[in-house]
């Protein structure tokens, strides 16, 4: 219950800022990965810190990686400074992502705890327009992800 509440609070906070930012002009087409410091509609953002951590550390979610690409192995993708902190900036996303917020309005984002897009061990779904902490039990295997 505690986690759920904090995730909701975190998601709401991110959402408010992102909505305000949406007033800025944006290109009609863009690469799947960007360097936006706050998550944008249609994208998914992976953060270095969990919502649990952020809630007890002044909203510090740490560095971010925003993408909409199919990523077969997170090891080649890196965190960069976000509007919510810089912890983890420069580190590979693989084995370091703790929190995911999905800004696609309808598509579920699936994190595969295995490289190569297969749920042969386990997957974690982040439903469209929701957020979740990634499970730390298999954190060392959070290896690939894509929108369903």
């Amino acid at each position: 219950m505690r986690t759920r509440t904090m995730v909701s609070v975190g998601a709401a906070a991110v959402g408010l800022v992102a909505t305000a930012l949406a007033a800025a002009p944006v290109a009609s087409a863009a690469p799947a990965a960007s360097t936006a410091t706050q998550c944008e509609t249609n994208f998914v953002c992976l953060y270095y810190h969990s919502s649990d951590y952020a809630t007890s550390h002044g909203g510090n979610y740490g560095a971010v990686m925003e993408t909409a690409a199919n990523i077969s192995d997170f090891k080649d993708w890196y965190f960069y400074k976000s509007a919510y902190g810089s912890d983890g900036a420069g580190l590979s996303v693989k084995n370091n992502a703790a929190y995911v917020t999905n800004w696609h309005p309808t598509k579920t984002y699936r994190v595969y705890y295995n490289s190569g897009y297969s749920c042969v061990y386990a997957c974690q779904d982040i439903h469209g327009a929701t957020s979740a902490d990634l499970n730390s039990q298999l954190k060392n295997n959070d290896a690939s992800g894509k929108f369903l």
Partner: protein
Amino acid sequence: MNRRHTLAVSLLAGTLAACGLAALSACSADTPAAGPAALPAAGPATAAGTPSGVPVIVDANDRPMPLDPYLLDPAQIAAIDKAQSVLVSRCMGRLGYDYPVTAESADPSGMGADAPTTRVDGYFGFQSMSHARKWGYHPEGGFPAADDSAGTHLPAQEGAALNGCAGQARQSLTGSSTGDPGDPDFVVRLKFDTLGKGTQDPRTLAVFAKWSACMKAKGHRYADPMKASGDPAWSRARLPTPQEVAVAVADQECRRDTNVVGVWYAVDYGYQQQAVQQNSARLAAAKAQMAAHLAAADRVLH
């Protein structure tokens, strides 16, 4: 003493429950008195009688697991996602935008025809020799082509409209604009916690060691099946290399020869059953909530 007893009983009961749902003949064939199914001597669940509860199998994807009823299965996930998409499309239409219903990708589990239908997760790795021979450790069809269509930037007004419509869709499906119609967080935690315990259990570690020795004899050095399927070399290409296929085929042969899946399944089943017993009230509430979400989705789709 209590923990030992509970685990042993739950392991046995779990296997019996699984057998009860399988064809009786298949269940009998799966429970030989000797052979590779015998549980390793170490571990918390070595009470008399338990070894006979370990099935001899190469594939557990058609066998139910105790947490299955409390997590969305693939068809339910597709229904929820489609309902949300329909709701957002209708809402956007009312605001003057053409926002088609989005199609779900084919084979989201990456396991093709061998994918379980009662759950999303395979838990025990690839369990199909025919898949290994054709696709190695890749999903059926290879990695999907790069697709960034989901990430197209939108004009500001349309983005704001979409966010509002997504909130309304969640309200319709869950009763709250911040509700989550996906898997309940705490059930997801139980799933990962039990899977973690299963992979660290002495019985599983012992059968991993046998599997590793089998692989070594075939010229492949991996400590456990996760290391083999997670070899970084496999993620470099969209399609499997001959080396990857060779390792994946050897993996399946060693799984068959050491009954990795049978032991791992029985151990994981025991931990999941224990989790269900210890969290019965919360799980019942979660299941009722899931049923409400699915009923709401059904009303949207029919």
